[in-house]
């Protein structure tokens, strides 16, 4: 079997770490941005696996369009005010309120 390049190992380690930050990070805005980074790195994985078609679609749709949709939704939620109902215990308290940086 051919060995695996360092780059592959790096990607295979970084992507799950990014994924963890996306689902469990303290700030929702940062999670969305990290998700876009995640999508772009995933496109790199597809390039490594010799799938340029999929890489193109992943970058354009998976990272680009989905990212835009997420940012847009976040913006609209913020425009409406986060509401009091969002104040949840623990890690997502930041997701609901004031710590959110203004774009």
């Amino acid at each position, binding site marked *: *079997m*051919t*060995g*695996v*390049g360092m780059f*592959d*190992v790096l*990607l*295979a380690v970084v*992507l*799950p770490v990014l*994924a*963890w930050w*996306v*689902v*469990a990070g303290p700030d*929702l805005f940062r*999670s*969305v941005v990290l*998700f876009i980074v*995640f*999508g772009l790195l*995933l496109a790199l*994985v*597809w390039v*490594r*696996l*010799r*799938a340029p*078609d*999929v890489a193109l*679609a*992943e970058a354009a*749709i*998976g990272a680009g*369009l*989905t990212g835009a*949709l*997420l940012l*847009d*939704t*976040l913006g*609209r*939620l913020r425009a*409406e005010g*986060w*509401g*009091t*109902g*969002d104040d*949840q215990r623990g*890690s*997502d308290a930041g*997701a*609901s309120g004031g710590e959110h940086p203004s774009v």
Partner: protein
Amino acid sequence: MNAAVLYTLMGVGLFSIGLHGFLAQPHLLRKVLALNIMGSGVFAVLMATAWRGPQLPPDPVPHALVLTGIVVAVSATAFALALLRRIHTATGRASLPEDTAA
């Protein structure tokens, strides 16, 4: 260890992380993110099956399946986000009642 095994392992890792996030996080936007991560995990497993070493051309069928999967995922995400915004407008919260009641 070759690239296929490596990325399959990454894929199942992503799926598990996504599932954990989906179950543990109450915020709906995060649940949507988590579902997308899970989907990416499945894509990685499929893409890894297509890999046949650096010399041989990869199997195009999983590539096509993943392309289809990406489009399905973005459709579902867009719909879920639109629904999320309506719920936020109507109820003032971005989580399901059972998650906030506890």
